C-alpha cells in the first residue's frame, strides 16, 4: 500500500505492507532510530511517539493506520541546537541512564506539559505509568519533567550545557 504519513512536520510517502508496524516504519523506512521498542505487547512504552499530539505506543499502531496523521518523534523535540525544556530537564536532573526509555518518556512529558503546564508529582507519575524504566527508579524522571515545567518561561534561553556547568 502507498501511504503518506506526516512525521515531524514533513509528509513521507512510502510503499508498505499493511502489517508494517509504525515503529518499524519510523526506524527502518525513515531511519528515525530514536524511537525504540522493548516488548511486543504494548506494555513497556519504549516505542511511545506522539500521534496528533498525544502519546501512543507505536509498536501497536500499523503504519497504514498512521496515514493522514501527524507523528512526532524524539528527533523533533529540539529546535535546531536549542533543546526542548524537557530534554534539558532530563540532563539537569539525571533523568536517564541507559537512554533506552528516554525518548518515549520525554515525549510523554512534553505532551503532559502541553496540556497541563504545572502538573503535580502524582499527575506526572500517572502520565508515565504506561512506560517502564529499568535504570532510574523513576524519581529523576519525575524531577526532570518538573524541571521542564519550572523552566518553561526561560525556555527561550535554554541551551545545551551537558558535561559542564549549569
Amino acid at each position, binding site marked *: *500500500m502507498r501511504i503518506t504519513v506526516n512525521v515531524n512536520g514533513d509528509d513521507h510517502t512510502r510503499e508498505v*505492507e*499493511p*502489517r508494517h*508496524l509504525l*515503529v*518499524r516504519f519510523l526506524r527502518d523506512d525513515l531511519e528515525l532510530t530514536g524511537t525504540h*521498542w522493548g516488548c*511486543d*505487547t*504494548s*506494555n513497556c*512504552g519504549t516505542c*511511545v511517539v506522539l*500521534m496528533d499530539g*498525544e*502519546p*501512543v*505506543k507505536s*509498536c*501497536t*499502531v*500499523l503504519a*497504514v*493506520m498512521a*496515514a493522514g496523521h501527524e507523528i512526532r518523534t524524539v528527533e523533533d523535540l529540539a529546535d535546531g541546537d536549542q533543546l526542548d525544556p524537557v530534554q534539558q530537564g532530563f540532563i539537569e536532573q539525571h533523568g536517564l541512564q541507559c537512554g533506552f526509555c528516554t525518548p518515549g518518556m520525554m515525549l*510523554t512529558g512534553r505532551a503532559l506539559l502541553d496540556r497541563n503546564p504545572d502538573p503535580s508529582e502524582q499527575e506526572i507519575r*500517572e*502520565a508515565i*505509568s*504506561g*512506560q517502564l524504566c529499568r535504570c532510574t527508579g523513576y524519581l529523576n524522571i519525575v524531577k526532570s519533567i518538573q524541571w521542564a515545567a519550572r523552566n518553561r518561561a526561560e525556555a527561550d534561553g535554554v541551551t545545551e550545557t551537558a558535561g559542564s556547568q549549569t
Partner: protein
Amino acid sequence: MQVPASFDYQRAESVDEALELLRRYGEEARVVAGGHSLLPMMKLRLAAPEVLVDINDLHELDHIVLVGDELRVGALTRHRTLLESELVGRYFPIVHDAEKVIADPPVRNRGTIGGSLCQADPSEDLSAVCGALHAHAVIRGAGGERIVSMADFHQGPYETAVGVGEMLTEVRLPVLPGAGSAYEKVERKAGDWAVAAAGVALTLREGRIADAGVGLAAVGAGALNLHAVQTLLNGSEPSEALYEEAGRVASDSCSPVTDGRGSAEYKRHLAGELTRRALRRAVARAGRPIGSTAREA
C-alpha cells in the same frame, strides 16, 4: 520483534462501507480500532485475520450524547475521552473509576469502548461496568440495528452477540435519578488486568436501594449481572449488614480459577470484598447531588 502475519487492510469511510467490507470478507475479517488487544494477538500469531477493517475514520461513532434518559456512547469513543468526559463523570462515576485503571495512558489514548466490549476478555473492566449499569449495546448489520442488553451481548470469554457482517456501534447507559455507582479493582500493578474487580450501580429511592446492578470481572463467566446480589439489594435499606451479605452472595456467585494473578480462594474473597467496597461508595454517591463526586478523595 514479533510481527503479524500478512493481511489485507481496508480503511472504511462510513459505517455502511465497514459493514459491506465485513459482509464481503465474512469470518476472515476483523474490525480494528485501537488495536491494543488485536495487534498483540496477531503478533503472537494467536490471531491471523485475512482482512482488517479500520474504523478509525468513522467519526460518527465517536460521540457521547445525552438523549432523553440515556447517555449514548459511540463504539469508537476512546478510553481517554470517556475519562475526560464531564458528562460521563456526572452520571456514571463508575465509568471514571474504571477508566482510571484500564491499561495505561498511551493505551487509553487509542483503545475504545467498542474494542473493549467486543474483545470480551474475561478480565476486561468495561464489560463488568456496563453489566452493572444495565447498559444496552446497539449492533448494526445489513438488516439494520438491533439493541441487546449487556447480559445478552456478552456471551462468554471472547464471544459476543456481534455476528459476522455486524458491528457494535453504540453503547447506551440509562440515566436514573438518585443514581450512584462505583468500581473497585485489584491489580498487581498499574496497567495490569484485574485480579478481580466489582462494579456496582444503584439508585436510592426513599432510602431504599433500587435498580441495583452488580458486575464482576476476572472471576469467571456469568458475573456481569449478579442477579442474586441484585435481588438482595433491591428494596433493601443500605447497611453494613446488607453489604456484608451482598459480598457473601457475590463470592458464592462466581467461579474464579487459580492463575498467576492469584488463587481461586483469594479471588472469591475479592469478589465479596470489592462488592462490599463498591456498594459502600455507590450508596454514598447516590446520596449526593449529581456532579459532586469529583470532590471525592
